[in-house]
């Protein structure tokens, strides 16, 4: 019934609810991820060399999308391979290490296929790579998961036909606090020693062995001023530069 026709008192004016503006651009900018190969290493090289390398890297990123990923993510990489069926080779694995700077940046993917552990080192900017998909997003407690070689094989097996997981928010990649169980010793490296600083292993070794390993600790290293390399300002500059170029 129309309010004008009835003789009731006009209802109290209800202002419409205020629209809540979610500034999505601001949300994305809150988390800045600069791929670690953009940060130049400390040395006596001319900064012009890094500038030119960065131009090439940005050019490649414009043509081919390299997603944001950390050590611990599960990736699927398709490369062009002359000797493979259909000339295309697809490999799924967990990223255990990201190394190299500039155009020669690499990442190592590990998987266990038919009870055989396989690790493949891919170059990020190799033109033979057709696609990189992130299947599962999760960070681990360490930067370097080389200890998975001495862990039980169940921690390195991943389904080759896994479906890609969609990104929910633009924030907070979950950290998996998994403590990995190891095969019996001997290991390829003495992972209990403090120089590797591994937090993701459940050490089932006797107390005596753990105490003996602490003998090799170097507590003065964190106070060594010559080893300090503060990259925050360099990162900001490079982040601005890379973003501007990518938007063009």
């Amino acid at each position: 019934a129309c309010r004008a026709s009835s003789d009731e008192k006009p209802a109290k004016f209800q202002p419409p609810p205020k629209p809540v503006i979610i500034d999505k651009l601001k949300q994305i900018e809150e988390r800045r991820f600069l791929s670690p190969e953009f940060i130049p290493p400390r040395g006596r090289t001319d900064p012009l060399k890094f500038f030119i390398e960065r131009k090439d890297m940005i050019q490649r990123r414009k043509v081919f999308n390299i997603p944001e990923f950390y050590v611990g993510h599960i990736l699927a990489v398709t490369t062009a391979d002359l000797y493979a069926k259909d000339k295309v080779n697809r490999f799924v694995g967990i990223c255990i290490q990201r190394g190299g700077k500039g155009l020669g940046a690499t990442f190592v993917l590990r998987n266990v296929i038919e009870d055989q552990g396989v690790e493949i080192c891919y170059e990020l900017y190799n033109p033979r790579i057709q696609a990189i998909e992130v299947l599962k997003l999760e960070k681990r407690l360490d930067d370097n998961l080389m200890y998975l070689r001495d862990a039980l094989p169940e921690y390195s097996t991943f389904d080759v036909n896994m479906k890609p997981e969609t990104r929910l928010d633009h924030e907070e990649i979950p950290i998996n606090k998994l403590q990995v169980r190891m095969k019996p010793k001997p290991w390829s490296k003495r992972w209990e020693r403090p120089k590797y600083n591994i937090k993701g292993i459940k050490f089932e070794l006797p107390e005596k062995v753990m105490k003996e390993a602490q003998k090799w600790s170097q507590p003065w290293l964190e106070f060594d001023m010559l080893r300090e390399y503060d990259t925050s300002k360099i990162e900001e500059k490079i982040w601005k530069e890379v973003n501007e170029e990518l938007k063009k």
Partner: protein
Amino acid sequence: MMPIWTKSGKKHAVTLLKVQDCHVLKYISKEESGGKTAKLLVGGKNASPFSKSESAMEIFREAGVPRKQKVTMFNVTDDALVKPGTPLYAAHFRPGQFVDVTAKTIGKGFQGVMKRWGFKGQPASHGQTKTHRRPGALSTNKAAKVYRGKKMPGKMGNIYRTSFGLKVWRINTKHDIIYVNGSVPGHTNCLVKVKDTKLPTYKECNKNPPFPTFFADGDEKLPEDLYDEEMFQFTDPSVTYT
């Protein structure tokens, strides 16, 4: 040094060389120099004029050019002469040409015979008394002397050496950078002399260069980057095999 990929997917390592303020300094005629061809003096990177004597600065003053840190000589035929004072750019070389690079190797100081000449030394155990990295015998019994030029310990490195037959993959005309295949003698940021190859296998590849040199104020307008035909450019899509 940087990686470079070809269109077939192979990877090669490449050294970047920057052409920094190169000028032709002086022309020396064939009779004056006493060689088979005329010579051109070319100077490299700019340096301060205050630490050299007046007589040494004469050459730079005549050419009208600031003092250069490195001065080298190039043997040049009469038809390829360039007027002293002209600047030289990286576009003098083109992708696909082959080049020799000369520089002073990294100085290692006084080194023993195993590092300097690659001698095998002696075993670490089984009774060796104080002899693990020594040269051993110097000559035979009959010679009764040590020959001249015997390999012995001494100062290693810091001498001029050349790498021959290096391919030029790419030229950046904006920053004057030459991308040269493989490694080059010398430490990072050292001064280096780049010449056309003397090897006969690459004679045909060095035909049709910019003659006598590339002039920046000329009519030719080059793009910012010149690539070799086989090189993969990052503007192309990924490499596929069919």
